[in-house]
């Protein structure tokens, strides 16, 4: 079932909160995972794997490096749902 962009953002914010404790209202599209949210590459991977399961998409290792902001991650997931 394809989620809307808003749903993907909300879902992703929940996953980020589970992994890091960061409040979902802090997770906005323009934020950078590393610079703004202080999420390191290891936590990022856990969030990615959980997002794959939650949204039933595949996010290859090569692609993860390109997802530097929340917005980029949301776009990728929304598009990958097909």
């Amino acid at each position: 079932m394809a989620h809307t962009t808003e749903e993907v953002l909300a879902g992703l914010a929940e996953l980020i909160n589970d992994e890091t404790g960061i409040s979902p209202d802090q997770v906005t599209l323009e934020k950078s995972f590393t610079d703004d949210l202080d999420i390191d590459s290891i936590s990022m991977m856990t969030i990615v794997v959980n997002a794959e399961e939650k949204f039933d998409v595949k996010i290859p290792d090569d692609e993860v490096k390109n997802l530097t902001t929340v917005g980029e991650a949301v776009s990728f997931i929304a598009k990958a749902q097909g």
Partner: protein
Amino acid sequence: MSLGAARGDLVVSNDELAGPIDSSDEWIRQRTGIIERRRSSAAEGAIDLAERAGKEAIAKAGIDPGAIGAVIVATISNSVQTPSLAALLADRVGATPAAAYDISAACAGYTYGIAQADALIRAGVAEYVLVVGAEKLSDFAKPTDRSISFLLGDGAGAAVVGPSDSVGIGPTVWGSDGSKWDAVGMDHTIKEAFEDPEGEFPTLRQDGQAVFRWAVWEMAKVAQQALEVSGISAEELTAFVPHQANMRIIDEFAKQLGLPDSVLIARDIQTTGNTSAASIPLAMHRLLEEHPEASGGYALQIGFGAGLVFGAQVVRLP
């Protein structure tokens, strides 16, 4: 039957390594769970560490080293293509003329060695087998590398495996995924280093994110399989001894496995570092020193690393 351990003679703090990687003690602790690691001084090589660990295991097993039928050394630290470290180790511990060979299976090397020892003894080809994981990874650590260098430590762990009336080593679940050959390994070849006038000695590097994902989620499946084929459930385990790759991997792995709180989890990496093939026997040796009551209980050990390769088995703690 018995374990032996040897760690590098130097204690190297995070502060000593943080400068060249433009980092800090806090960053290293947070990323890896390492407070300090052991490394060897110039005078001490992988073979010396192997000898110390091997002799301890042999003494604790209470056997004549001459009864050892095979010496297997899992290592990536041999400084020459040939001869093997195992041949020299056999000589040093008094096991000559035992069969002797090295295994190149990175951080899965020790579990591969245990699988082999188990098979050799069951086949009647050897009565006792000395399996050693021995590494001097500091020889392959580039101080400015931010992907892996600060994780690395030096050490050796040894096990004497022998015949028994009851099963002490469960069926091995092992394998490889060569499609990820580039995920962790050397940054260039020896030949390339030699041909380049400014060439540096090859050192270790990794694609940390790819390795983390594989090590946690794929290896959790392997660990489950190892439990299933051994007929031991997570609740029956006394200890979980994963390759000490990174504390974050150990934590997430344990979470994925859903281990009960009663299971002891080896976290030797905290003060030893990642010693590749040596990490499992070193961690197990330490766990038993700190929890002697664990002896005789079941432990799930799993190694995984460059190749990518992996190996897991449930064993009885000596």
